[in-house]
């Protein structure tokens, strides 16, 4: 060691004639610390990082031997490609545009995803499961994360492989060059379904729909509060309400996708300003 300057960091206590000492393997004494199973960052961790970096570089260089960055023809404002696809990481949102109006699918929903992710640590009050992988100790949290990102990835897969001309549904074996006849599917708002089924007036039917929509959120808020009191108590009112708004919205998005794909429902609620 070339550093010869010896400094006394812990001056000996003059009143005490003893010190606590333990013998253990190692090349240097550990002071004021319990014996622990540690190794030096250099070279142990640094080498792992270096190898990691080299592997990633090698993998990338290998990849670009087979796959090249695309370059289409010069930008032309007068010819719109059909179908027009966003970059893959936004294809989920583009696919959601099928099920919701743009103000929701393109603006409010992405905003809610971001805010929802940010508040997660503040509404998850379960102290268990830090520092190791576990599903059993935090089933509900893992369920929420997985459900949200399952939606995200499934819609990406749909957008990438199952959408073709005019953003219509094309199976892998369908003729990709022939336009689908959009008239085959008639989309209706939910209240029209009620008008046809129950023979009520449009306004009454719309009232039904509003009740259903608000009822979904109201019951969604109430039921866990009434019957899963432990869950509520563990969170407190503020956390509970915040969490449930995001939770019910996420479930609502999934529900709407199902309603649209299976029953061709375009809107649940229709108002003069916004439709959902």
């Amino acid at each position, binding site marked *: 060691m070339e550093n010869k300057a010896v400094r006394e960091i812990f001056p000996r206590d003059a009143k005490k004639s003893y010190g606590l000492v333990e013998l253990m393997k190692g090349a240097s004494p550990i002071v004021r610390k319990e014996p622990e199973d540690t190794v030096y960052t250099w070279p142990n961790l640094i080498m792992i990082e270096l190898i990691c970096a080299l592997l990633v570089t090698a993998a990338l260089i290998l990849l*670009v031997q087979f796959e090249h960055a695309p370059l289409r023809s010069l930008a032309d404002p007068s010819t719109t490609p059909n179908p027009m696809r966003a970059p893959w990481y936004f294809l989920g949102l583009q696919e959601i545009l099928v099920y919701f109006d743009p103000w929701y699918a393109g603006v409010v929903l992405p905003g809610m995803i971001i805010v929802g992710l940010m508040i997660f640590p503040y509404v998850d009050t379960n102290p268990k499961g830090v520092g190791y992988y576990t599903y059993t100790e935090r089933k509900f949290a893992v369920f929420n994360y997985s459900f949200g990102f399952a939606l995200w990835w499934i819609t990406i897969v749909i957008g990438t492989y199952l959408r073709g001309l005019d953003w219509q549904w094309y199976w892998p074996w369908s003729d990709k060059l022939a336009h689908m006849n959009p008239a085959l599917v008639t989309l209706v708002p939910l209240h029209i379904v009620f008008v046809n089924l129950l023979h009520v007036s449009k306004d009454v039917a719309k009232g039904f729909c509003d009740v259903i929509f608000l009822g979904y959120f109201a019951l969604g808020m109430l039921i866990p509060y009434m019957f899963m009191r432990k869950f509520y108590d563990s969170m407190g009112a503020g956390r509970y309400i915040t969490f449930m708004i995001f939770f019910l919205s996420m479930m609502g998005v999934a529900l709407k996708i199902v309603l649209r794909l299976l029953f061709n429902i375009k809107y649940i609620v229709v108002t003069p300003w916004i439709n959902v």
Partner: protein
Amino acid sequence: MLEKMKEKVVQTQLFKSVFRHGYPDNELNQAYVVFSNIFLHIHPVKVRRTALRMRYTFCLGGITLFLFIMLAVTGIWLMFYYTPYTGLAYKNIKDIQFVIFGGNLMRDLHRFAAHGMVLFVWLHMTRVFLTGAYKAPREFNWVVGVVLLVNTLILSWTGYLLPWDQLAYWAVTVGTKMASYTPFIGQNGPWGAQLGVNPTNDLMFMMIGGTVVGQNALIRFYVLHCVVLPLVVTVFLAVHFWRIRKDGFSGPL
């Protein structure tokens, strides 16, 4: 022989002036190398042996960081050949592809590292989630992480416009069109028109500097992509790493 040369080199004034300690082959210098080096000092001097096991982080955060560095390097290289002008941008990319030595490699690396970064930032987030590493006292670092995630996506998307081909043009046209549907501040959004918002004063106009994607949009996206967003990411990364050390690492590290 090599050993002797190494001895000689590390004893020189030059070496000492740069590193201020000898070669890290003994414990004192192994400690010094980490805490006296600005790049290494984000690490603790010692880590628990179990932390070297890869099956906790899978190196995902580290790979994301490495891809970001790689993007900076290849990106700066590309900047030497690229002009953010609608009349030239596309030709520049063609030149990079077909004329400039190593151009294709650099552009491909930049493109795929970008895709990789988006993928790995998500994988890293998933790792952090599944190990509960966002819980107290690390809540805020998770929030910082989400900011990084969003910035990564926007970085990738602003870069998408720069080649000025059909793919670029229409992806950004449709994407920025979404902004015009923003409630209150978008011309097509709910309560937008009622508030007097029109095509020349709404959010989309602000984003692309006009009513259609053109030269103004290109220069905006260029500056955001090459200067503003990388800086933002760097600042948030500094906070991110600082917080990992201050909050303590969650795992067996």
